């Protein structure tokens, strides 16, 4: 298995393949919208997404500007995402909508499952292969690689993985692409841990 690309975003900035992207450096609190504007993307649905989906969307947009993932058929691309906060931010907003504001909000309800973000990515990029979303206690490299191996056995040629969290003051997203070739697992694990801790 080989790491073929990665992108990490947070309010502190964007790292693409480990390199800080100065031109995408956000300066204000509304940092996700700022990065969206700097990317000059025209995708109005972005504004409706919750923070989880926005971060995954932006990370993958940035990653796909340099990755060769499009060389694969969409059925050969598996999406494997995880976090440890599920969709709690949206869950709480949804509860607020009916407890305080008086009526349950359909547009909030849509995002009360974290795997909606994999659907958003699938729609945006027309990737209709396997996708899954797991809730894990922490970023677990071993777990990701187990899932990657599973999907390679099922016919995937590349796995786009992501760890994306949005809860209270934590907003983080790391996406990385793994292909079924080359590098041994030990090196790959070290690479991924280094990226996560960067």
């Amino acid at each position, binding site marked *: 298995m080989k790491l073929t690309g990665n992108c990490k975003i947070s309010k502190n900035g964007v790292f693409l393949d480990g390199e800080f992207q100065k031109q995408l450096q956000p300066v204000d609190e*509304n940092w*996700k*919208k700022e990065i*969206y504007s700097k990317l000059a993307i025209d*995708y*109005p*649905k*972005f*504004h*409706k997404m919750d923070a989880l989906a926005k971060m995954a969307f932006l990370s993958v947009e940035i990653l796909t500007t340099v990755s060769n993932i499009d060389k694969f058929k969409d059925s050969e691309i598996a999406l494997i995402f995880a976090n440890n906060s599920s969709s709690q931010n949206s869950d709480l*907003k949804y509860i607020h909508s009916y407890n305080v504001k*008086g*009526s349950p*909000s*359909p*547009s*909030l309800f*849509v995002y009360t499952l974290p795997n909606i973000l994999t659907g958003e990515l699938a729609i945006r990029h027309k990737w209709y292969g396997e996708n899954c979303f797991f809730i894990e206690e922490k970023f677990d490299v071993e777990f990701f690689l187990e899932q990657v191996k599973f999907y390679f056995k099922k016919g995937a040629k590349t796995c786009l993985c992501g760890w994306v969290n949005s809860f209270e003051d934590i907003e983080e997203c790391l996406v990385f692409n793994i292909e079924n070739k080359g590098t041994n697992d030990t090196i790959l694990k070290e690479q991924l841990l280094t990226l996560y801790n960067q």
Partner: protein
Amino acid sequence: MSDLKQTLKEQIIEQLNLEDLTPSDIQDDAPLFGEGLGLDSIDALEFIVLLEQNYGIRIADPSEGKEIFQSVNSLAAYIEKNK
């Protein structure tokens, strides 16, 4: 009327949870569904709630929605006519 449009834009942002947007991002005559704001059928439900809660207007015929929710202009005109 312009006050109503400004209020409507604020209410749309609040009701539809478009946290990133400001009223100035929404043009009076821009389509709300499809291209413009990229809204869909889920959001149409939000508009129905918005009209009922804020203006006491109930849309009796759902088929009217397409025309009423076309833009901030059409929404404001409908409210002015029916409030």
